């Protein structure tokens, strides 16, 4: 029972970590909290649905969906955020809200206000059993995919030139540009990565929810934002730590709170966030450079 809840917590934490990381990558480079990140997830979800309806095999459909998320993120940067480059944090924030609202309405009116069922393959609802201990295939995939994505990102940031430039840009963008690295490339890569992470998170999210709807991006982006703030805005390790912490606290509270208090779960979680920020105002693992906010 306890081991089971730990698996649940890690699985949810992994998804939150992917989401928070997507927000943090963009924030660390351009100082924008992209509230339209959730709509990238929604878009990937619809892309998955469309691919499955068109009869693509499941792995191909997932690939198409994740690529759609990544491309949409790059397009979003090109269309909405590039003209706003250099604008104040507030303007950027409002732009991201505008993009988010716009996409939601497009999904609602262009596709359907009704959630669409996504038939996940039967094996995803299966479970392994060891005696009376069972692990669902869904949570296992969730944990494995999150871990692989985090490792791959770490390798990219440490080993590739673009990755190194991105880490440097997070600390001091002007110096990186003086080194002859084009700003647009760095920023586009940051959005591409955040889109990839959003796409992956969307696949895990949809696998657990079996449906996509126009508003599905709202909750995850909120959770990711909380995780990123707790972890330390703009800090990538912080975002991962924040994501796992949030997932673990949520599952533990859900598992242990008595029925009468359970509805206050979110309030308790957010009080915990305030407590963490009181002790560590810059977050668990603060960004190397104080950010622009």
């Amino acid at each position, binding site marked *: 029972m306890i081991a089971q809840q730990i698996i*649940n917590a890690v699985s949810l934490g992994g998804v939150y970590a992917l989401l928070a990381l997507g927000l943090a990558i963009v924030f660390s480079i351009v100082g924008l909290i992209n509230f339209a990140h959730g709509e990238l997830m929604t878009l990937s979800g619809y892309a998955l649905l469309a691919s499955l309806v068109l009869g693509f095999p499941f792995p191909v459909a997932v690939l198409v969906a994740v690529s759609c998320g990544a491309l949409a993120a790059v397009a979003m940067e090109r269309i909405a955020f590039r003209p706003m480059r250099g604008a104040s944090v507030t303007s950027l924030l409002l732009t991201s809200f505008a993009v988010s609202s716009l996409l939601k309405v497009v999904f609602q009116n262009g596709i359907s206000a*009704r959630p669409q069922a996504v038939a996940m393959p039967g094996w995803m609802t299966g*479970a392994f059993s060891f005696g009376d201990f069972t692990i669902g295939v869904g949570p296992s995939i969730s944990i494995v995919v999150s871990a692989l994505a985090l490792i791959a990102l770490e390798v990219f940031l440490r080993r590739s030139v673009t990755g190194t430039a991105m880490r440097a840009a997070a600390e001091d963008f002007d110096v990186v540009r003086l080194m002859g690295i084009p700003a647009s490339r760095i920023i586009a890569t940051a959005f591409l990565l955040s889109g990839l992470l959003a796409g992956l998170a969307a696949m895990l999210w949809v696998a657990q929810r079996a449906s996509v709807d126009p508003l599905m991006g709202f909750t995850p982006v909120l959770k990711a934002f909380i995780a990123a703030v707790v972890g330390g805005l703009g800090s990538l390790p912080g975002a991962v730590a924040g994501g796992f912490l949030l997932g673990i606290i949520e599952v533990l509270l859900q598992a242990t709170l008595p029925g009468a208090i359970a509805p206050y779960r979110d309030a308790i979680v957010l009080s915990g966030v305030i407590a963490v920020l009181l002790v560590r105002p810059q977050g668990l693992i603060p960004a190397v450079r104080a950010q622009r906010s």
Partner: protein
Amino acid sequence: MPSLYRLHRAALCAAVFGIAAISTASAEEIIIGAATAQTGGLAPYDQPALAGLRMSLDELNAKGGLAGKYTVKLLIKDTRSDTAQTATVAQELIDAGAKIMITPCDADPSISAGQLTQPLGIPTLTLCGSAPVLTGAVGDVMFGTYPADNVQATAVADFAVSEGKKKVFLLTSPDSTYTANLPEYFGKVFEKKGGAIVGRGTFSMGQPDFSAEITNIKGLADKPDLIMTAAYEPDFPAFIQQLRGAGITIPVYGADAIGTPTIKALGKLVDGVVYTAAGYAEPGSKLEAFNTAFTKYAGHAPESTYEVNGYEIGLILDQAVKTAGSDDPRAIRDAIAGLKDFEGITGKITYAGTDRMPLRPVALMRYEGGEGKHVETLIPDAADVPAP
């Protein structure tokens, strides 16, 4: 010249006012305000219901309007599934002269609109809001139209008991009246008829992860043989996906909000799930004829029984205006409240003697192989229905 000019003007005046007088005399118009969700979480429920209502109003207008006399002008405003916005648009509709108000498929926004219509005596009908506390929370102008939650829950409980179910787990969410109360009504009836509630769990609407709750269900010492919930989209698909994913095969029963194409499209995942509807289209029934007519009208088949429920609202209003003999809101209200054994499409609808939640049949349905199969249609015994 001035005299000629004056003459001209007089003639013009006469012409204008003459026409105006004729137009008010010949075409009597009644404005129905629809404060309904076109976007947001309630849209998937409000839109089908509204489509049914429009169809009946179009048909009635073709025959001269309500009671053959009052042409209906339907004003529709989007509430964005937001309770505060519902009050705002309801006020706009009242200002535009609405004499009848239609509100969303949920108790909370309907109550917020009802707070505005109650003092003015404007009859207010919720499209498919089914919480029985809804009418009492507003007052005598507020009417439900769909089978009430406590009636639906009683029907499902009667069925579960008849199947020999003994132990139930109730999954509720305090976020809406519907998700909070319906399973509890079920529990009351179930316990009264010899069943036991072996556990309770809660969720937040829109919650991504049900794993902790599911692990709790799995860890129950006293294993339930049934899970009852009023969760709907997108929570119901998430819950059942994760429940089955955790290897739990206990049947899950719900109510009307899961009788939708989305849930049906989940296919094998929802096999055995029992839910309710406002009616079932048996061959040769009025409902089957309605479904054919609706398909012709809208270009697609009805998604659920919300369409026919909306259509019946039009019929109820027509009958009420006929009985009232005028377009006075208070007279219409009294006429609706007095309806008894009114022949709708799904069966007889009665308001007389109720607290304005109608007595009407409930159809029990069960998903099998991606299709909703009819189990039975019944009107639960009023003595069994728990108080709101």
